[in-house]
């Protein structure tokens, strides 16, 4: 059984990752979860300077989902390098540094600081964080900006470069094509959807920034459709993200065209859950005589089934 997956010469142990902003820097939960079982971890978005993030409240639960408005709170690239990266030494999973920035220059600077470090295996570029006013949103909804950022970063690294796209656009395929056109090695689909919630008794928004990012099982059908749209539009691999918590969810994304998956919000509910997925995916493949997990990628069949729920009979 082959579980591995390669990107620009880098081979990942398997196709399951933890998503940016949902697993810290990988050092928080070593008591209960082993990173070694993952294909890789994507760090919290790193910016040049440390960021305090948004005022509280930053979290609101919704039906099968949650809203967040963290505001890219992070320790900054320097402290990440000094304090966090050493703790990831010896871990068998890949480390993908996710970068957030408020200017093209900042993206470049942060990448250049991280690129020489051997423990940084690749980059994911957050062009789409919807809840930071000076941040992502403007880039992620403008095709030319996504092209520009990809181009500038591509010139600066030979490591895998993944562009993480926002779903809050009419045609995500255009953005994927732009990234592909400028040499991105993969795209990640999707970041959170813009959402909001109001406390009707206080009449105040439940998030300090009024709107925030929606994630969790609620968005899975939307994420799948965006992955499918992207898969049809580009040749580079797609990281599927959005509402994944079970191995069934992961396989659904692979079939829709994702080459690998990232688990996000589900880590908050079960911090050891993502680590179980690779093995469960393998078990599924074995039971279906699939020899390479990669054979599932894009494996959805064209014609839908007949309209009958017959599982009870």
């Amino acid at each position, binding site marked *: 059984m082959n579980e591995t997956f390669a990107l620009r010469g880098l081979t990942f142990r398997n196709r399951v990752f933890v998503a940016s902003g949902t697993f810290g820097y990988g050092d928080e939960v070593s008591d209960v979860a082993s990173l070694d079982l993952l294909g890789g971890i994507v760090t919290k978005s790193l910016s040049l300077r440390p960021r305090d993030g948004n005022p*509280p*409240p930053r*979290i609101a*639960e919704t039906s099968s989902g949650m809203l967040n408005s963290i505001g890219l709170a992070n320790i900054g690239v320097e402290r990440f390098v000094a304090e966090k990266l050493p703790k990831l030494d010896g871990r068998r999973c890949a480390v993908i540094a996710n970068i957030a920035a408020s200017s093209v220059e900042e993206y470049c600077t942060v990448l250049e600081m991280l690129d020489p470090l051997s423990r940084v295996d690749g980059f994911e570029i957050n062009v789409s964080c919807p809840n930071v006013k000076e941040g992502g949103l403007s880039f992620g909804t403008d095709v030319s900006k996504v092209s520009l950022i990809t181009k500038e970063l591509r010139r600066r690294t030979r490591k895998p470069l993944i562009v993480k796209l926002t779903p809050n656009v009419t045609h995500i395929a255009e953005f994927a094509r732009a990234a592909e056109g400028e040499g991105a090695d993969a795209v990640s689909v999707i970041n959170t959807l813009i959402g909001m919630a109001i406390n009707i008794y206080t009449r105040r928004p439940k998030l300090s920034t009024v709107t925030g990012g929606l994630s969790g099982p609620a968005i899975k059908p939307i994420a799948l459709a965006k992955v499918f749209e992207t898969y049809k539009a580009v040749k580079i691999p797609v990281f599927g993200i959005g509402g994944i918590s079970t191995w069934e969810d992961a396989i659904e994304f692979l079939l829709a065209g994702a080459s690998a998956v990232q688990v996000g*919000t589900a880590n908050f509910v079960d*911090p050891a859950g993502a680590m179980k997925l690779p093995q469960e995916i393998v078990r599924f493949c074995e039971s279906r005589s699939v020899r390479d997990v990669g054979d599932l990628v894009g494996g959805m069949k064209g014609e839908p089934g007949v309209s009958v729920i017959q599982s009870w009979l």
Partner: protein
Amino acid sequence: MAMILEQAPVRTVTEVGSNVFQLTFSSLAIAREALPGQFVNVKTVDGSGPLLRRPFSISSVRDDEVSILFNVIGSGTKALSLMRKGEGLDVLGPLGKGTFPLDDDAYETALIVAGGLGVAPMPFLRASMPRGKKQFVFLGARSASQVVTVGLEDAQVATDDGSKGFHGTVVDLLRNTLVGNDLGHPRIFACGPLPMLRSLRELSEAKNIECYVALECEMACGIGLCQGCPVESSGPGKKYRLVCNEGPVFNALTVVF
């Protein structure tokens, strides 16, 4: 300080007050590691509740048994209240590095102040108190029917409507007690609604008494992964501290609330 994630069997679920439940589960590992002020983040194993876990203060610990005390508010606490003996509770804990500081010599008398269900962490706090410390417990509630005294039967009670004990807030009751009584070096341990904690901070500043408060806020993970639970810090340096990780107990002077 290990963090444990396990499916702990439920021992009992008892209604101990109007709409207030005590749920006891068995987890030797959590019972051993727990410190007063810490919490557990729980969900039902069958997934009948909401998406996210729910945080609850560790209310008491005896042998392998850990209890939490809660009000049925919404779908999470509803699902917990319906659990039956033997069912598995999905527990993550004990959580929080900010705990009630009990073991030093800088105080002689513990002033334990709780508003409403802020009593939750107090039985465990009292059981963990080193010998030789004096303890005074003050409970506040809206009215007599809302006083929950599980494990705190010797407490002095204040009710807003005067229907039980002192007529007024629990902070007024404490203020009265402070007047004319020599309590040695006191330290306040508190949990309760924000207005109570705020007026307590004022009192403690005025009287120059150390004051530790258990805070809570919206949490997605409870373990430092999501950055979702900031409280503003009052000192220099970092603007925010994480309630789940650096709290939930803080020295009242170090945070803005």
